[in-house]
Each structure stands twice: as C-alpha cells, then as structure tokens.
C-alpha cells in the first residue's frame, strides 16, 4: 500500500517535471495571425463607402420602397462635406428643385447611412399627417437611416433601421443628369392618363393573354387581376419610375410570361386606349371597359377588417376627372379618410380633414359587404363634424350621396392597404384609397 503510494508520488513528480519542460519549450511557439482591430476595418469601410457615394459624377438614383407600401424615385448627389442634394419624383416642385441637406455614415451594428437633416425623403416618415398624408404618429412608415447591406460598384442595397424599408441606390449614368427626375416624374404623370379614361376598368392584352390592370401612380404600384370569378388571382407590386416607362420591383410571372417593365406608352386619351411595350419588346395594348374585367370578391372583406385609416387625396373621381366635387379646394384640405369602426358601436366614417388637420366633416354610416364582392355604406346617420362653410358644404354632401349609393362598390387592391372603390351602378365613378 505505502510502496505503491510512494511510486505514484515519484511518477507524479516526473510527470510534472516533464510537463513543465514541455510547456517551456512550446510556450512561445505561436503563429501570429495579423488580426486587424474592428475599428480599423470599420474606418476603412466607412471611407470606402463615402468615396463610392461621393465620386459618382452624376450622383445616385434612389428607389425607396417604404415598409408602409408604395415606391418613390429619388436622385441623390453626395459631396464629401457631408452634404447631399435631393430631387424626388413626388411632385413637380420636388422633381425640379433640389433640396440640400446633410448625411453621415455611422458605425452602428451595421454601417448605416443617415440622412440626418430634413429633406424630401423625410416627408414620407413625418408623423404629422398634414405633411406625409399618412397616419398620425406614423407617416407612411418609411425610413431615413439605412443599414448598408450589400455593395457592388454600381449598386448599394440598404435597409431601413426603424421600419425596414428597402432603399436601392444605383449609380446614375450619363443621361440621368439634373433633369432626369423631372423627366421621370413627367413620364409617370403621362402614364397616369390611363387613369383618366372614361371608365375605371382597364385590361391589358399581351400577345394572347389578357389581364385586368390598374396602375396607381399615387403610390407607384401596378396590379394585375386575372383567373376566374371563383379562382381570382391578384398580383401587386411597386414600380420604379424611369423616363421611358416603369420598372416592376417584383417581376410578374404567369406561366411563360414574365413582365419586368412597361415602356414606351403611347396614350390615346380620346380613344381610351394605350399602346405600350412589355419588357421593351412585346407589343401590348391597354383598353378601357365599362364593366369589370373580373371581380375581387374577397377585397371588401379584406379592406373592412383591417384596422387602418384609409386615405384619399382627391375624393371622388368621375369619368377621367379627378376630384369631381373639388373637395381639395376646401381651405386647408389635408385628405379624405375612410375609417372602419371609428365609433365603438361599429359606425364608420368618411371624413374630409381640412383646416390643416384641425377640423373634419363627413358622413357616418355602417359598412356591409357580400359574397359577390360588393360593399355598401348604409345606415347613414348624416354628416358629423365642423361645417366647412356654405361654399364648401355641398362638396361634402355630394360625396356622401355618392358614397351611400345602395348599389355599392367593387374593391380592387392596388398595394398594401391600398384599395380602389368603384361604383357598381356606374363604372365611371371611383375613389382611390391608400
């Protein structure tokens, strides 16, 4: 017993001794990997991004797809002094006049591009409904600080840090100069003439295929409706505006046909038809229809059950005339809103917001919808809110009369939470909500 312990003891000492020797011999044998400090890499990347952004001679075309829906085309010219000049195809003034503001690249978890003082881009994020046209406290659910996810010499792919909107920056080429955004804006206005045909319903014929089509130039989405009444199919996507057509964010696939862009519109407003090219090569024609091409029977339900404040910038459109009742001339007009379940007892409202958001007026009613895809607004309780004055009250009354038509409306979804309502009794009467 004792002998074996002694033996063990000796053995242990030997092992410890050899172990130490081994340690000493190997202790300093190491392979130096040239680790870089993270800050060095970050600093290099920031410098690289900044060089890339500021050395594009014609700036960058920005395609912004807010999380709240829609598509917006911008032009950004970045300079090394943290300044950026922005043009936006949002309205004529923004398209022509560049606004200067600031930007910076910030090393957050992923290096981010901050548009850090107010510009056209921020209007989409503005929580003030009078500025964004969106919901109070949310705006159009967009972004102005973006993580840089993916970089190639001519393209940067970015994602919004707050809401996750997508921003694509594409290096502008030589013919996308200072007037490019204006040209793109005007082209989109031109495309909008297909919404000025007499009836709401349009179909597009591409080779031997036909689809119902809606181009919503307000939020820049294109929608195809097809299939049969029992097997209705819908495809919505945002599009980017170019100066000769529109480019689909997500291509439309139907069997062998893939649509990536619609170009070279030739609109004949008096004939209510437009010829165009699909993907720059296939001839196509858009024709106006007095009756629906196809009915989306589920759309009224989808629209009604969503807890959302639907907003219209024009009110009622009739036979190619936007805002037939001229509600936009009510002083301080902001928008017209349809809000299901505005009151706790399930009464809904169609309020016209005016006086820069301080006042509202409009009908109070209940919404009903059926399996035929028709929604109507009944149980009309009359107008509620602030009288906008004798000169303007008839505009609200006329709107309410159209709205409470017992024949009801068809609904067509044109984007996330965006619907067009079309009168069942007259295909020339429609309202566009977003």
């Amino acid at each position, binding site marked *: 017993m004792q002998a074996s312990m002694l033996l063990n003891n000796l053995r242990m000492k030997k092992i410890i001794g050899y172990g130490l020797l081994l340690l000493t011999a190997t202790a300093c044998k190491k392979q130096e990997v040239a680790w870089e400090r993270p800050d060095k890499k970050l600093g290099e990347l*920031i410098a690289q991004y900044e060089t890339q952004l500021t050395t594009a001679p014609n700036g960058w075309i920005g395609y912004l797809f807010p999380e709240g829906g829609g598509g917006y085309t911008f032009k950004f010219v970045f300079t090394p002094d943290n300044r950026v000049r922005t043009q936006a195809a949002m309205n004529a003034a923004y398209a022509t006049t560049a606004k200067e*503001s600031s930007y910076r690249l910030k090393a957050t978890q992923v290096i981010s591009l901050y548009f*850090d*003082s*107010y510009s056209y881009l*921020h209007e989409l994020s503005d929580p003030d409904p009078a500025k964004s046209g969106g919901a109070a406290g949310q705006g159009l659910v967009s972004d102005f600080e973006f993580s840089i996810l993916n970089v190639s010499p001519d393209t940067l792919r970015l994602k919004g*840090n707050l809401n996750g909107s997508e921003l694509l920056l594409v290096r502008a080429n030589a013919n996308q100069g200072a007037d490019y955004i204006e040209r793109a804006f005007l082209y989109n206005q031109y495309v909008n003439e297909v919404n000025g045909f007499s009836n709401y319903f349009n179909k597009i014929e591409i080779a031997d295929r036909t689809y119902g089509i809606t181009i919503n130039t307000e939020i820049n989405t294109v929608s195809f409706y097809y299939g049969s009444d029992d097997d209705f199919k819908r495809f919505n996507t945002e599009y980017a505006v170019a100066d000769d057509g529109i480019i689909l964010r997500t291509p439309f696939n139907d069997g062998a046909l893939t649509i990536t862009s619609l170009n070279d519109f030739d609109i004949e407003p008096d004939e209510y038809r437009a010829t165009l090219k699909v993907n720059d090569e296939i001839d196509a024609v858009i024709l106006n229809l007095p009756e629906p091409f196809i009915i989306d029977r589920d759309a009224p339900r989808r629209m009604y059950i969503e807890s959302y404040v639907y907003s219209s910038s024009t009110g009622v459109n009739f036979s190619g005339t936007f805002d037939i009742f001229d509600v936009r001339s009510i002083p301080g007009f902001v928008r017209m809103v349809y809000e299901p379940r505005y009151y706790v007892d399930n009464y809904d409202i169609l309020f016209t917001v005016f006086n820069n958001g301080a006042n509202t007026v409009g009908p109070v009613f209940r919404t009903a919808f059926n399996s035929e895809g028709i929604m109507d607004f009944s149980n009309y309780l009359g107008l509620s809110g602030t009288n906008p004055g004798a000169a303007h009250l008839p505009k609200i009354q006329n709107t309410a009369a159209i709205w409470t038509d017992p024949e009801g409306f068809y609904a067509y979804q044109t984007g996330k939470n965006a619907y067009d309502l079309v009168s069942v009794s007259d295909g020339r009467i429609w309202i566009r909500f977003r």
Partner: protein
Amino acid sequence: MKKIILIVQVLIVFSVLSCQKSDELPTDPIIGLGGDVWVPGEIDAFIEDNFIKTYNIEVKYKWDPYEVNYNRTLVPPDEERVIPVLEAVRDIWMKPYEKLGGGGFLKTYALSKFVLVGSAEYQSNGTIILGTAEGGTKITLFVVNDFEPTNRAEVIRMLHTIHHEFAHILHQTIDYPQAWRGLSSQWYTATWFNSTNAQANAQGLITAYAKAAEREDFVETIAFLLVEGQAAFDAVVAANPDVANIFRTKEELVVSYYRDVLNIDFRELQAEVSAAIQSITAPQS
C-alpha cells in the same frame, strides 16, 4: 528534493521571462469615440459661438436615434429652421435670465444639452409631446420644422415649451415650495388630455397640461406667466372668479420662489421676456 524544487523554480522563472514581449498599442482611432463628426457648416459655427463657447451647451440638430424615444416615429429638423429657433431660444430664454440673474446664472442652473427634433412626438393616447426635460440637464425641443419667427402663435408655443422645460430644471435643482402642495391636488390626473384649457381654468389650473401633475402645474404656471404674459394670466383669473384666490396664491408662490431661491425679480423677468418676444415677432422697422 531540494534539487527538484530548485529546478522547478528555475523553470518557472524561465517560462515567465520567455514570454515577455512588447506589442505596440494600436493607433487606429475608435470609431465614434467622442461623438460623431462631420464637416462643420454655418449652423455648427453659430452653435459654437452662441452655445458652446459661452455656456458649454451642446446643441444636437442632426438626427441621432439614441437621443430620442426609439420606438416613436420622428424626423430630424429642417436646417432652415435651426438658426431661427436657436436665436429665439437665446433671445427669449437665455438673455432675460442672464440679465436678471447675473452672468453666472445659466452656468449655475446649467443645461448640458439641447436636442432638436423636426416633428412632434405622437403618443398612443392621441396627445403630442412638444418638449421634454431630463435629469436637470437635457432639453428636447420638438416641432422645430413648424417654427416661424414672424408667426407669434408659433413663437409663443415654442418658447412656452422652453420656459416650461427650464422651469423643470430649476425645480429639479431646488424643489418648489411646500405651500404648493394641496392647492390643486384633487385635479391632478393622468388623463389630463380629457380636459380643455377652459375646464382646467375653471378648476384653478392655468392649462389642461397643468393637471398632469403637481410639478407640471408649477412649471406651466411659470411658463404661462412669462410667455403668454401677465395680461393673459389676469384675463384667465378674471374669467374664473371662483378660483381666483388659487391662481393668485400660485402666482405669489412663483414670485417668491424666484425671489427667495433664485434671487430674481420675477416681474422684471416677465417684462424682459415680453419685450424679447415682441422684438422677434414684430418685423424691425
């Protein structure tokens, strides 16, 4: 045995010494240490001259998500509005206090930071936040993008916010008098926004927001007396004779707080602020 110990000791010394090496300290700067940097412009120079050099107050006007409520939708200020807002802050808030409280006043009751935000902060209960004061050092001013120096109502709204928030800083440093307690305790409520200003006035509170809490009551009374002015205050008191004594007690407490605690003549301060508002809003002739 001793031999073994000796060998082991030598080996240990050897192994310790053998790893002595001298790495150089890295020279790359740590990104963002000391704050974000950008090429300074006209606004940065204005802030440098009027706020940093004079009072060591930082003014943040460029977007910084970490300075604000991260789960609210907010936008940064429009650069065109920044200098007009800061001029109004300097002339209607800082200068009157400095004139009456002495050059060191704003250094005693010091702010360290102004944060400017373009929009209001929308709350889920339908109210909006126009300004906040934190920890006695930081004031966040919202709705900078709607500021217009010639629009008197807008100037009053913005300056009311600043004086309100600065009064918070004052009472966060030296508390308001005990006598304030109990004057309107029965009216304080988290749902202050269900009252109109007129309803609040009839209860002896100067604005609806004064119903939010005792400290809000205190600073709203100060801000109203300074920015809306004595005449407007008197009109409210005259319209609500039932609670006139409450209003007058509060007014007295404010005046004595300024006199005893801050050594400032509140009446003169009112006159200074009123004159400054006049000179900013009325076009110079």
